């Protein structure tokens, strides 16, 4: 696609906007996700000359979205503060989600118990994600929460594919260990209370 073809670009916007807004949201743009994506589309249009014909448009666009999202928290100061701010936007969204709806939809008692357990697991998972170092959380977010493939994840985060692979591996191991530890803690507390 060439610059100077607004109609074709509008079609492109329509096609990729939902994934782009989702990416901005999951990377911490919060209420500004749509603004971020609009701006990203304008920038992408402007940079179409630099976009290599034949390569996938989506990862290229999402990379711009990811950068714009980072810029959003620029005023928060130090990197740690910026990253914390970004995660603050995401955590409630993930912890809330459709859990309530799922619980309401379940009728039988078994279903209700299951829904409760699922909601608990979900809250624990979000908490564990929050404890993950940002580079690891980012690859998990792109690869699994957003459902991008490894190449796309690498493109969006601007990291080599090997780095993405190794970070994913370590992130999953860390999450697993964290969840197990949290679970043990909870179990111990319950035992103490009962005793």
């Amino acid at each position, binding site marked *: 696609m060439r610059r*100077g073809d607004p109609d074709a670009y509008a079609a492109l916007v*329509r096609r990729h906007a939902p994934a782009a807004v989702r990416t901005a949201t999951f990377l911490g743009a919060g209420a500004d996700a*749509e603004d971020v994506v*609009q701006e990203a589309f304008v920038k992408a*249009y402007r940079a179409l000359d630099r976009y290599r014909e034949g390569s996938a448009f989506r990862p290229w666009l999402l990379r711009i979205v990811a950068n714009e999202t980072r810029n959003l928290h620029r005023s928060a100061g130090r990197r740690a503060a910026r990253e914390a701010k970004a995660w603050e936007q995401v955590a409630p969204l993930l912890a809330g*989600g459709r*859990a309530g709806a799922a619980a309401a939809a379940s009728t039988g008692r078994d279903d209700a118990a299951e829904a409760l357990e699922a909601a608990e697991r979900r809250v624990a998972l*979000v908490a564990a994600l929050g404890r993950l170092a940002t580079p690891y959380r980012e690859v998990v977010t792109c690869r699994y929460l957003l459902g991008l493939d490894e190449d796309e994840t690498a493109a969006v985060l601007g990291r080599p594919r090997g780095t993405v692979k190794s970070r994913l591996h370590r992130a999953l191991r860390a999450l*697993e260990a964290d969840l197990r530890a949290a679970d043990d803690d909870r179990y111990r507390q319950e035992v103490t209370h009962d005793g």
Partner: protein
Amino acid sequence: MADVHDVHDGLVADLVALGRSVPSRPVDDAFVRRVADGIAAVDGVAAVDGVAGVSPAPPHHRRALSRRVQAAVAAVVAVVVGALAVPPVRAAVADLFGFGGVLVREEPVPAPSTAPPPPGAPSHLTLAQAAELVPFRPAVPEALGDPDGVEVSADRRVLSLTWETDDGTVLLDQIGARLDYAFAKSATGVEFVTVAGNFALWFAQPHEVVVLEPDGTVRRETARLAGHTLIWERGQVTMRLEGDLTRAEAVAVAETVAETVAD
């Protein structure tokens, strides 16, 4: 090594489910239109880099600011279009947000390959005197030392410092935030850089500098060709460094800017 998916099947499934539990929203027509408007503003006409008459808002007002800046952009573009009567070409609005209403548009018109040195500011004032006149605390780059020339614009909104160096004149304009006119430029080759971690713009090519009047009209007689220029923001003041500097040199100078101590 086993595939990560095999080892952590349950966890991966939970993560995917977690992601999917957050609903995806399709965008509406208004969204597409706003992108189109953004592109139209960008893809419109002459190239302008202006410090438009918009007071910078705190970054958390981003949404409101973006709309306001967009309005300002439209106005400035229209005016400059009329004044320059340049046929529509593609151009670019740079990052408009959190940047004191600076707006940049590129114009692929052939620009002269060299620009005259920036005008020197005759030393009518001392820094302390200038500080009395402008509504902000003047700042001086330590890398350049005491300026050779100090001047304040008639409306007291722009402080210009100059240094005579081995590489010619270096000019630093400091523009108060409550600015009701703008520098407008025709520019090619605008680059994004950072000064001490903050967003900045680098103009590698000679470009036209035009001053906009409060009513948005262009003061043509003020148009002049500018050389290498770095624009960044420092608190409520927009800084503009111009001279025969490389990008790295300009950024290095900009990063040594320190406020003068009030006498």
